[in-house]
C-alpha cells in the first residue's frame, strides 16, 4: 500500500548534480527518483518549441528536460527558486506543461519562504509525509557531501586533464568517479568513490610545464557549469593544454558562502556598489582574483538575454583594462554547432599563448 503512494520525483538535468538529487530523493526522502535523460539536441528542440522566444536559454533547457522526465515516468517535478528571472521560471514551466496536457504534481520552491527553517520541514513533508526526520537529516548531509566532492574533483579535473601523460587515464578516473556517484546507495559508496578517484588522479602522471596557461571561467550559474549548454567550453580549453579554473559551483556559491557573500561584496566595493543579480558579485570578485593571481585570460560565459550577466560585462571590461588581462565574452543560445565557438577559443588560445612569450 505504501509502495503505491511513493512519489516518482525528478529535477531537470543540471551539470552533474543529478547524482546528488537522486541520492537525496532515494535515501533521505525515501521516494523514487526518475533520472532525466542526458541533455541532447532533442531536449533543446522540445524546450525551444514550447518556450517564449526571449526567455534565457537555461529555461528552454530545463523545460525540455522536464518534458523528458515526464516521458520517463516522473509524477512529481521539483523546481528551484532563484534571485533573477529564475524565480518565476517554476510558475511559467508548470503552466506550459499543464497546457501541454501533462499530469503531475509540481513542487516549486518559489512558493515557500526559503529564509525560514520551518518551511523546509513543510517541503520535506510534502514529498513524503512519513519521512523519518533523523534519517532524512543524516542522508541529506551525505547528499551535500557528494556535492562537495563532486565540485572539488570537477575543479581538479579541469585544471589537470589537459596535461594527462597517460593516454586518457585522468579522464577515465573522472568518468569512473561520476559513475560511482550516480550509483551510490550509502555513505560508504560516496566515500569510497571519492577516495578511489582521488587516488587515481594522484597516480596519473601529468606532463605540465612550470608555468602553464591558466584561464578563469566566470559567468551565469547554469550555462557556465553545464557542459552540454556551454558546448563543453571547459573541456575544449583543457584539451588545448590549459589549466581551467572555475570558482563558481554549488559548494562555493551556496554551501560555503551562502550567506557569506557579504564578504565578497566588501572586497569588490571599489568596482561596484550593488549586487546586480544572483552571481554578479562572485563573478566580479573572482575575475579580479584571476587577474591578481596572474592568470592568462578570463572567459565569460552567459546565455543570450541573461540580464544580470550583461550588467557584469562593463565591470569585467574595467578589470581587463586595469590588469591587462584579455576577456573572451561568449554568449550561448540554443545553438548546436560548435564551429563558431572553436574559432573563438582557438584564437583566444593563440593569443594568450603568443602573448605569454612576449610579456
Amino acid at each position, binding site marked *: 500500500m505504501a509502495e503505491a503512494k511513493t512519489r516518482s520525483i525528478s529535477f531537470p538535468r543540471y551539470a552533474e548534480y543529478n547524482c546528488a538529487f537522486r541520492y537525496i530523493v532515494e535515501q533521505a526522502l525515501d521516494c523514487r527518483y526518475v533520472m532525466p535523460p542526458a541533455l541532447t539536441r532533442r531536449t533543446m528542440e522540445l524546450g525551444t518549441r514550447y518556450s517564449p522566444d526571449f526567455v534565457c536559454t537555461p529555461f528552454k533547457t530545463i523545460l525540455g528536460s522536464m518534458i523528458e522526465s515526464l516521458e520517463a515516468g516522473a509524477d512529481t517535478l521539483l523546481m528551484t527558486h532563484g534571485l533573477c528571472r529564475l524565480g518565476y521560471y517554476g510558475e511559467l514551466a508548470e503552466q506550459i506543461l499543464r497546457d501541454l496536457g501533462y499530469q503531475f504534481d509540481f513542487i516549486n520552491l518559489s512558493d515557500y519562504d526559503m529564509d525560514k527553517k520551518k518551511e523546509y520541514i513543510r517541503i520535506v513533508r510534502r514529498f513524503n509525509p512519513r519521512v523519518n526526520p533523523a534519517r532524512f537529516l543524516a542522508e541529506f548531509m551525505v547528499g551535500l557531501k557528494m556535492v562537495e566532492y563532486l565540485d572539488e574533483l570537477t575543479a581538479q579535473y579541469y585544471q589537470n586533464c589537459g596535461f594527462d601523460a597517460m593516454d586518457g587515464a585522468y579522464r577515465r578516473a573522472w568518468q569512473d568517479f561520476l559513475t560511482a556517484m550516480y550509483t551510490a546507495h550509502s555513505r560508504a559508496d560516496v566515500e569510497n568513490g571519492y577516495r578511489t578517484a582521488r587516488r587515481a588522479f594522484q597516480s596519473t602522471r601529468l606532463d605540465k610545464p612550470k608555468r602553464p596557461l591558466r584561464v578563469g571561467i566566470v559567468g551565469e550559474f547554469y550555462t557556465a557549469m553545464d557542459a552540454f549548454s556551454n558546448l563543453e567550453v571547459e573541456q575544449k580549453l583543457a584539451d588545448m593544454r590549459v589549466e581551467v579554473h572555475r570558482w563558481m559551483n554549488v559548494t562555493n556559491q551556496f554551501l560555503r558562502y551562502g550567506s557569506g557573500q557579504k564578504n565578497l561584496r566588501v572586497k569588490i566595493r571599489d568596482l561596484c556598489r550593488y549586487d546586480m543579480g544572483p552571481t554578479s558579485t562572485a563573478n566580479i570578485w573572482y575575475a579580479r582574483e584571476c587577474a591578481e593571481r596572474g592568470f592568462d585570460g578570463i572567459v565569460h560565459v552567459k546565455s543570450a538575454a541573461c540580464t544580470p550577466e550583461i550588467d557584469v560585462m562593463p565591470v569585467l571590461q574595467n578589470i581587463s*583594462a586595469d590588469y591587462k588581462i584579455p576577456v573572451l565574452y561568449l554568449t550561448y543560445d540554443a545553438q548546436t554547432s560548435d564551429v563558431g565557438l572553436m574559432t573563438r577559443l*582557438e584564437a583566444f588560445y593563440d593569443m594568450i599563448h603568443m602573448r605569454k612569450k612576449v610579456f
Partner: protein
Amino acid sequence: MEHAYLGVDVGSISTKGVIIDKQNHLLASQYIWTQGNPIGAVKELVGLLEGQFDKGAHQIVATGVTGSARKLVGAILGATMVKNEITAHAVGTTTFYPDVRTILEIGGQDSKIILVENGVAVDYAMNTLCAAGTGAFLSSQAKRLGIEVEEIGDYALRSTHPTQIAARCTVFAESDLVHKIQMGHPREDIIAGVCNAVAANYLNNVGKGKKIVSPVVFQGGVSKNKGVVAAFERTLGCEVIVDPNGHLMGAIGAAILARRGGARQAFDFDLVDMDFRTREASCGGCSNHCEIICVYRGDQLIDSWGNRCERGAGAH
C-alpha cells in the same frame, strides 16, 4: 628551386588565395566569390593561382588554410596548417605593420577587432549571434538601392549631408533606411548614412569597451569601401590605414603560419581535376543525432567531423 607557401582563406562571401615566397613577396594572388560552394570556389581558385605561378622557379612546400570553411578546405588541400581567421589576420597584419596597435576587420558575415601590443595580439573581440553591420548588410542594401556594392564608396563620398540611420541592429537599420528612402532623401546621402551606420555599429558592438589606439589598420572586404573608411576616420579622429592587399590579409597570414609551422607537404595543382563531395550522416546512437560530415575524394573517405562520442565513430 625556391620554396613557396600557399595560403587560402575561404570565407562566407569570398575566397582568397595567395602564394608567397620566403620574403613575403606575393607570387600570385586571387579573390573570387564563394557563392555558397566552398569546394567549387577552392578548385577554381587553385586553377587561377596556377595560371599566375611559375612552377619552374618555385615549389610550394606548405599550405595554410583559414576562414570559416577551413576544416573542409584543409582536408581537400591537404593543408599543413589550419588556423582560425583571427590569428591569421593578426599574424598577417603584424608582419607588414609591426607597429600596428588596432586591427579592424569587417568581412562578409563577421567582424572582429584585434588589439596589438609589441607585435602580438593582446585582446580581441568578435561579433556573436548577430551579423549586424557586416559586408552582407552592405551588399543587400546596395541591391535594394540598385547599385553595385563596389560603387558604394564613391556614392558615399559625394554626399555632403549624410542621412541619420539607426545603427543598433541590421533589421532596424533596414526599416529605418526604407523609411528614409520613401521620405525622399537623396541616394548619395542615404548611402553615406549606411556607411556611417556600419562604422557606428561596429564600434558600438564589437569595439565596445576596447581602447582603440593609433596606428589603426582596417581590413576585410568592407575595407575596400571608401565610405566606411571615411566614417571610421571621422569617428576615431585618426588615420585609418587600408593596405592594398588588406582583403588578402587572412590568406597571407595563413601562408606565413604555414611557413612558420614545421610541417612540409608539397602541393600539386592537380586537385582541379579531382572529384570531391561531402555527405551528411546522421548518427542514430542516441537522441542527440549528431550530424557527421564526411568528405570524399572520389570514393575514398579522407576526413569526417561533427561526431561527439565514440558511438558515432562507425556511422559513416
